[in-house]
C-alpha cells in the first residue's frame, strides 16, 4: 500500500524478531515442497497421464478443484481487506492489509502456476493474451484474463512495500556502489508515483476480483447435465462471489492468527474481533441465496437422499456456513482467540469443500466407468504447492516490512 495510506508501521522480521527462520515445522514443510517439485518434474517429462487419474470422463481433478478454484477463493482476503480498509477508509484494519495482500500475491502466483501444471500445452498460455484468439463467449477466457491482470495489479500494490524496504538502504558493494544514489533516487520517484496512482489500482483490484471470483462459478454452469443439481445452477457465479466475500474475511483472520503464533507475537484480537463481526451477515446472505436457489429449482429433495453427494453438501453447509455463523454471532466467542480461529477455519474449510464439490464431487459425466479418485502423485503436488506458499510467505515477511511492528501490536 502507498505510504500515504499506511499509517501503521510495519517491519521485516529479520533483525527485528527473535524467531529463527528454520524450525522443525518449517523443515517438514520444506521437505513436502521438495516432493511437490519432484512430482512437477515427472509431470513435465512424462505427461499428465503418468501422475494423474484424469481421463476422458473426468478431465479435471483436484488440481483444478483445489489448487486453482480454492486457491482463488482463499486469496479473496486481498480484495476484501482492500475494500474494507481503503475503499471504506477503515483505519483500524490497515494492519491487516499488507499480510492479506502478500497472501493474495503469493496465492495468485500459485494459481497461475497451478493452471500451467494442469495445462497440456502450457507453453501456449500466451495465446490467451492474443487479441486474435480472444474468445469472449468462454467463461474460462474471462477467468484467465482477469486473473492475469489482477496478478499484475497485486504486484503493483506490493511495490511500495519493496520501495519502503530499500529506500535509504540501497547499498550495492564495490563498483556498483556508484549506482547507490541513483537507484535510491529512482526508488523514491517510483514510490511517489505509486502513491499517486494507487487509488486506481486498489479499485481496479476490487473490480477485477469480483469479476473473476464470479466467473469461476460460471465455468461449471456450462455443464448442466454433468454437474449434480445440488450444485449446478445458473446463479453459480453469484454464489461464488458471495462466498468469496465471506471467506476473504475469514482468511484474513485465519492467517493473522497463524502468523502470530508462528512468529511468537501477540494475536491482534483488537482488529480481528471487530472484523469477525461482519462475517455472520455475509454468511447469512450466502446461505439465503443457496437455499432460495435450491427451492427455486426444486432441487432440495436431493438433500434428503442418502448418498455421498448429499452428505458432502450437508457438511459444506453445516460445518462451513451454519455453525460458524452462530459462533461468530457470539460476542464472547469472538473475543476468544481459539474460538475465533476455529470459526474462521470452518468458513475456510466450507468454501474449499464447496469448490471441491462443484469441480470434483458433483461432476457426474454421462458415461462414467467409476468415480474419479485423485492419484497420490496428484495429492503430493497439491500439498507441495501449499507448502511452497507457506515457505514463500515466511521468506517475504522475514525480508519485507509486512507484519506490524511489535510494540504497536502490544500497545494498541
Amino acid at each position, binding site marked *: 500500500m502507498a505510504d500515504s495510506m499506511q499509517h501503521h508501521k510495519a517491519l521485516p522480521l529479520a533483525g527485528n524478531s527473535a524467531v529463527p527462520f528454520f524450525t522443525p515445522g518449517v523443515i517438514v514443510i520444506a521437505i513436502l515442497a521438495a516432493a511437490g517439485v519432484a512430482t512437477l518434474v515427472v509431470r513435465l517429462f512424462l505427461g499428465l497421464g503418468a501422475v494423474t487419474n484424469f481421463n476422458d470422463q473426468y478431465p479435471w481433478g483436484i488440481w483444478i478443484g483445489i489448487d486453482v478454484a480454492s486457491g482463488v477463493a482463499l486469496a479473496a482476503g486481498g480484495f476484501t481487506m482492500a475494500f474494507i480498509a481503503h475503499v471504506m477508509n477503515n483505519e483500524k484494519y490497515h494492519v491487516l492489509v499488507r499480510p492479506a495482500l502478500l497472501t493474495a500475491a503469493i496465492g495468485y502466483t500459485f494459481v497461475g502456476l497451478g493452471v500451467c501444471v494442469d495445462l497440456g500445452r502450457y507453453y501456449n498460455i500466451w495465446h490467451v493474451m492474443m487479441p486474435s484468439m480472444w*474468445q469472449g463467449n468462454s467463461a474460462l477466457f474471462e477467468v484467465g484474463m482477469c486473473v492475469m491482470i489482477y496478478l499484475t495489479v497485486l504486484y503493483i500494490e506490493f511495490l511500495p512495500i519493496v520501495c519502503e524496504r530499500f529506500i535509504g538502504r540501497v547499498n550495492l558493494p564495490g563498483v556498483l556502489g556508484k549506482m547507490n544514489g541513483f537507484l535510491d533516487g529512482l526508488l523514491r520517484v517510483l514510490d511517489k508515483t505509486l502513491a499517486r496512482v494507487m487509488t486506481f489500482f486498489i479499485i481496479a483490484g476490487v473490480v477485477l476480483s469480483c469479476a473473476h471470483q464470479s466467473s469461476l462459478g460460471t465455468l461449471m454452469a456450462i455443464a448442466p447435465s454433468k454437474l449434480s443439481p445440488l450444485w449446478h445452477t445458473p446463479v453459480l457465479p453469484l454464489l461464488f462471489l458471495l462466498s468469496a466475500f465471506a471467506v476473504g474475511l475469514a482468511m484474513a483472520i485465519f492467517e493473522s492468527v497463524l502468523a502470530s503464533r508462528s512468529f511468537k507475537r501477540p494475536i491482534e484480537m483488537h482488529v480481528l474481533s471487530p472484523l469477525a463481526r461482519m462475517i455472520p451477515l455475509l454468511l447469512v446472505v450466502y446461505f439465503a441465496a443457496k437455499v432460495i436457489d435450491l427451492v427455486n429449482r426444486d432441487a432440495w429433495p436431493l438433500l434428503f437422499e442418502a448418498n455421498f453427494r448429499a452428505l458432502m453438501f450437508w457438511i459444506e453447509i453445516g460445518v462451513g456456513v451454519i455453525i460458524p455463523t452462530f459462533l461468530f454471532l457470539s460476542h464472547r466467542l469472538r473475543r476468544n482467540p481459539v474460538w475465533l480461529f476455529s470459526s474462521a477455519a470452518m468458513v475456510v474449510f466450507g468454501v474449499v469443500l464447496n469448490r471441491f464439490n462443484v469441480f470434483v464431487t458433483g461432476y457426474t459425466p454421462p458415461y462414467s466407468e467409476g468415480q474419479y479418485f485423485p492419484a497420490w502423485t496428484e495429492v503430493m503436488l497439491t500439498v507441495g504447492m501449499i507448502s511452497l506458499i507457506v515457505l514463500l510467505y515466511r521468506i517475504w515477511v522475514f525480508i519485507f516490512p509486512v507484519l506490524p511492528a511489535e510494540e504497536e501490536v502490544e500497545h494498541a
Partner: protein
Amino acid sequence: MVSRRDFFKITGTVAGTAALTAVGAEASAPHPKLDPDRFGVLTDTTLCIGCRRCEWACAEQNDLPHGDLESFGDTSVFDLMRRPDAESYTVVNRYSPPAGTDQPLDVKVQCLHCEHPACVSACIVGALVKSPQGPVIYDAWKCIGCRYCMIACPFQIPAYEYADPLTPRIMKCTMCSERTLAEGRPPACVEMCPPEALVFGRRSELLELAHRRIMENPDRYHPEVIGEHIAGGTSWLMITDRPAAEIDIPELSNESPAVITETIQHGIFKGFTGPLMLFGILGILMKSSSDKRKEKEDENG
C-alpha cells in the same frame, strides 16, 4: 486523497480501454451464421450391420493407430460398451435385438457436430470452431490443453492424449473436414459403409429424408430424429428403433448448454457496463469515505 478530477480521469481511461477490449472480443467471438445448405450426416441405426468398417476407414483417414481391415471383423468388442477415445474418433456399439427379431441394433458413436456447440463456446482460445458448413473443427496449434471443452460437451465426446507430455491433442471426429469442406466429398466412414447406413448431404435434406423414412415405416422406427432438437440441434442426425435413452443418448434439454454461460457472460460483461459501474460506485464510496475521515480529523485536530 482522490480529487474529483483524478477520479474522472481514471474512470475515463478505464472506460476507453474496456470499450476497446469489448470490441475486440466481440469481433473475434465465433458466432458464425450457419449456412442454410450446411452439411450433415444421417445415421440409420436400423441399417447398420456392425461390420465396423467405418471404424477402420476413419482410422485410415485420420492417421490413427489401427490394425488391418480384417481385424475390425472381430465382434468380441461388442461385449463392452465402448466410447470414442484418443485413438479412435468413432466406435460401433451393439444393443439387444428389438422384440421378436434376432437382428441386433448397432449404433455408431462419434461427435454430433452440434449446431451451437458447447465445446466451441467453452474453448478459451477459439481452437474449436463451428464451420458455417457444419463440421466442428479443431486447431491443435491454438489449443492450450485446458480440457474445458471436455467438461462442456454434453455428449462427452472430446478425448485427450494424456500420455503425451509435450503436444497432447484434443481428439474427436472432424466430419472429415478436409474431404467434406475442401472437396465436397463424403467422410471416409460414410463412403465405406456397405449397407449405406450412413448418408452424407445437406442437413436440411437429411432431416426430410429421416422424417420420410419414419413416416413410411412407423413400425421400424421410433418417431424421433435424434439431433433435430437435442442440445440445440446437431449436424449429425440419427434415427433408430427405440427411444434415444435406450441407446445411451443422455437426456438433455433442447437448448445448448452454451446458452446458459453465454447469457451470463454477455449479461455481465456486455460493453463492460457491469465492471465499469462497479468501478464508479467504488470510486465514489472511496472518495466520500476519505472526505468523512478528513472532516473527522479536522474536527479532532
